[in-house]
């Protein structure tokens, strides 16, 4: 197989539960068996699951924090400037009764309030948003998990840190969060190629279409894997043809595959006939988008 010195591939889908994790983890395993230098980044920080599929040792766990203002009321003149500067409505103020409160859940840590305050009444503290956990799976193969703390409002900061931690060398697979909003954009923005995983249903097609349109505006190339092929209808195949999008692979609906997944097992370990399709798919992507060819 072709071994690129570095390539970043995002595995994404508009619709949840189409098989992003199934694909990412099995692709990771197949490439690892080929002695590639490979990192899998679980960017689904709200519900990270990749590490369930691997036995590894934790190398490190980094805390991801955010700055949140602390207002010293004795210095505050209740002028309201910080409230005016905050673009997230995170500062609540009632000057007549001298009440000022920071709504930490709404704060994005931009620091505007500190700039606004002329009375030195605002300092900052760190608030924990989550962790980036790094696991060594085998030599040259690492799983990095973005894990948002339960109760935190947005996973974006933790995702960004996890991607940063993965660096730039070797093969990097980014298991993306669902949807096409900010967490998805942050993940695919760094990718050289995007694999969209979908299922052949009207819901799958609708969400695929939205993902494809979004990737177009970002000038990202994508290919599609149809999971649970055989259940559903053919509209998705028509769409791919019409849009000239590569159909990278089809995985049929198969109770065995579902059952291995349910137990936290990698199906390619047991159904070894699947190794080759994964390698061929990877080669076809690297030929065009990996740097070994540049």
């Amino acid at each position: 197989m072709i071994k690129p010195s570095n390539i970043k591939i995002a595995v994404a889908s508009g619709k949840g539960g189409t098989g992003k994790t199934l694909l990412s983890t099995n692709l990771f395993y197949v490439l690892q068996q080929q002695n590639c230098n490979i990192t899998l980044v679980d960017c689904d920080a709200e519900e990270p699951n990749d590490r369930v599929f691997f036995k590894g040792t934790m190398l490190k766990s980094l805390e991801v924090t955010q700055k949140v203002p602390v207002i010293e009321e004795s210095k505050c003149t209740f002028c309201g400037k910080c409230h005016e500067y905050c673009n997230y409505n995170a500062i609540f103020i009632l000057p007549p009764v001298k009440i000022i409160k920071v709504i930490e859940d709404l704060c994005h840590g931009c620091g505007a309030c500190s700039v606004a305050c002329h009375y030195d009444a605002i300092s900052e503290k760190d608030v924990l948003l989550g962790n980036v956990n790094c696991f060594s799976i085998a030599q040259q193969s690492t799983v990095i998990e973005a894990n948002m703390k339960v109760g935190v409002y947005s996973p974006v900061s933790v995702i960004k840190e996890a991607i940063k931690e993965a660096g730039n060398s070797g093969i990097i697979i980014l298991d993306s969060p669902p949807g096409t909003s900010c967490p998805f954009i942050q993940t695919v923005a760094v990718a050289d190629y995007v694999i969209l995983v979908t299922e052949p249903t009207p819901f799958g097609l609708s969400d695929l279409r939205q993902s494809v349109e979004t990737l177009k505006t970002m000038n990202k190339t994508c290919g599609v894997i149809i999971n649970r092929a055989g259940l559903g209808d053919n509209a998705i195949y028509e769409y791919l043809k019409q849009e000239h999008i590569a159909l990278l692979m089809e995985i049929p609906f198969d109770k065995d595959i579902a059952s291995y997944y349910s137990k936290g097992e990698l199906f390619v370990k047991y159904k070894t006939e699947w190794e080759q399709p994964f390698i061929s798919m990877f080669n076809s992507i690297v030929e065009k988008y990996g740097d070994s060819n540049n």
Partner: protein
Amino acid sequence: MEIAIISGKGGTGKSSISAAFATLSGKVVLADCDVDAANLFIMFNPTHEEEQVYMGGQKAVIDYSMCTNCGLCVDYCRFGAISFLNGRVSISEILCDGCKLCSRICPSEAITMIDSDKSRMYAGTFRNGKMVYGRLAPGEENSGKLVNMVRDKAKKMAKAENIDTIILDGPPGIGCPVISTITGVDHVVIVTEPTISGLHDLKRTIEITSKFNLKTWVIINKYDLNNEMANEIELYCNGLGISIAGKFTFNAQVVEAMVQCKSIMEYAPESDFATQIQSAYNMIANGKIISKRN
């Protein structure tokens, strides 16, 4: 009565179950709160009686005729969104968080904020009542505010039409849009599947619902894909005193129904799956009466 259907993990069957609940018998207001990947409108094809613009976040834009390239904004931006590119200050649309600090501190007033106005809320009539859904523009922060807008509209419609039941189809994950979907509802139904990932995500989702002290039910969908895991999930829920509202068998008819743009109640009202849905719904809805009496 508001019933929210959520799942943590994507693709467990939230929307199929929401659609079934919405077509059981009496009229309902159906609100699709998965604004990042709205799907139920495909199945129910509601009329467009109302369309509202949802104002999302803002993005900073530089007017280069005024910019002196002083770089002050680069120093102030905490999101790493502003940097010198080819000798010129440049703002990354992807990384910009919309805090407006750069615009406020720019000595030459060269930076303005552009509102993103591409997200929408739609409301109308579908074959079993009223329907509301939101569509978040790609790349937007999914802050939960559009979800709040959808829920407000759903409540207004329920009142105006004298409809008792509001069904909320929630987004995946555990972040802000999920919190917005479940805050203050009468019942939260978590749909899970018998996989390690399903259980792992269920645990995090229950953490959220218990934080908000919400009456929580669990449905184990496709439980026969892994009976052992289904039992483990049931034991886990029993241990926490959370009732299992149903254990549904895997049924390919659910997908066939979706392809026909029908709910399982409409497509196969006599099927086992339809019976399971009905009894789960009865259990949840009656639970409401019991808890009122207490």
